[in-house]
């Protein structure tokens, strides 16, 4: 099989692409998509480490399942917030959402 370190490096690359997207994009939907990329990198790490180190226990898979659940909840609430903000302000640019800033 492909060595474990390859999976971990791919996962690190994907996570850093997501970090850049979260820090640099102005569109709130793009930021949410970057967060999904980071969660996918975490899941890839969990499953690769499970497969190479503890394939006899399903613990790594169970953790990945819970990451899926949290990602689904996060996407639903985040997109609802974006729609709600869009109704009020007619844009989804995070730079201009300064209601809580003084």
């Amino acid at each position, binding site marked *: *099989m*492909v*060595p474990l*370190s390859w*999976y*971990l*490096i*791919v996962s*690190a*690359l*994907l996570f*850093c*692409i*997501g*970090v*850049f*997207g979260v*820090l*640099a*994009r*102005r*569109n709130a*939907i793009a930021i*949410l*998509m*970057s967060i*999904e*990329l980071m969660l*996918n990198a975490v*899941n*890839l790490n969990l*499953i690769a480490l499970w*497969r190479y180190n503890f*394939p*006899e*226990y*399903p*613990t790594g*898979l*169970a953790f990945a*399942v*819970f990451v*899926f659940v*949290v*990602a*689904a*909840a*996060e*996407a*639903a*609430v985040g*997109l*609802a*917030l*974006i*729609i709600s903000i*869009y109704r009020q302000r*007619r844009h*989804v*640019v995070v730079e201009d959402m300064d209601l809580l800033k003084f």
Partner: protein
Amino acid sequence: MIYAVFVLFVLMILGGGIGVVTSRNIIRAAAALILSLFGVAGLYVLLEAGFMAAVQILVYIGAIAILIIFTVMMTQRATDPTRLMFNTQWQWSLAVAVVFLLLLVYTLNLVWPFTTSAETVASTGDVTFELGRALMDPEGFVLPFEVASILLLGAMVGALAVARERHDDEEE
């Protein structure tokens, strides 16, 4: 052979990921996200976690990506392609991401040194069966499993409450 498949999936993942953060048009970014998620599902298949690959396609591509595309549809005027894509500190963001990547690769190299020789790994048994048992086992993950259902219920009700259209004659 398996290396070629691995490289193909990695190209899908990283190409899709770069597409997500650099696409000016948000619908293209969503399409790139779907490509990236498919690549991750392919790597799950290579890791002999077929159930996770199926869940990845059902939950991520079937639900989350479609939800994102629906949101893009409902906020379309806001995603005018001529507007600025990155904020003013995007160079710093790039530097942070690259430094973090180097740190991660350095640390990973200490614990799991980079190698090109194939690893032999014990084959897994019926993992999906074991996973189902573990999720329902009182000694295993039944409490987090139930908490996850409450989390999903709360997220659903919360999303409905937040996104609901309010009318002026309605009392808050």
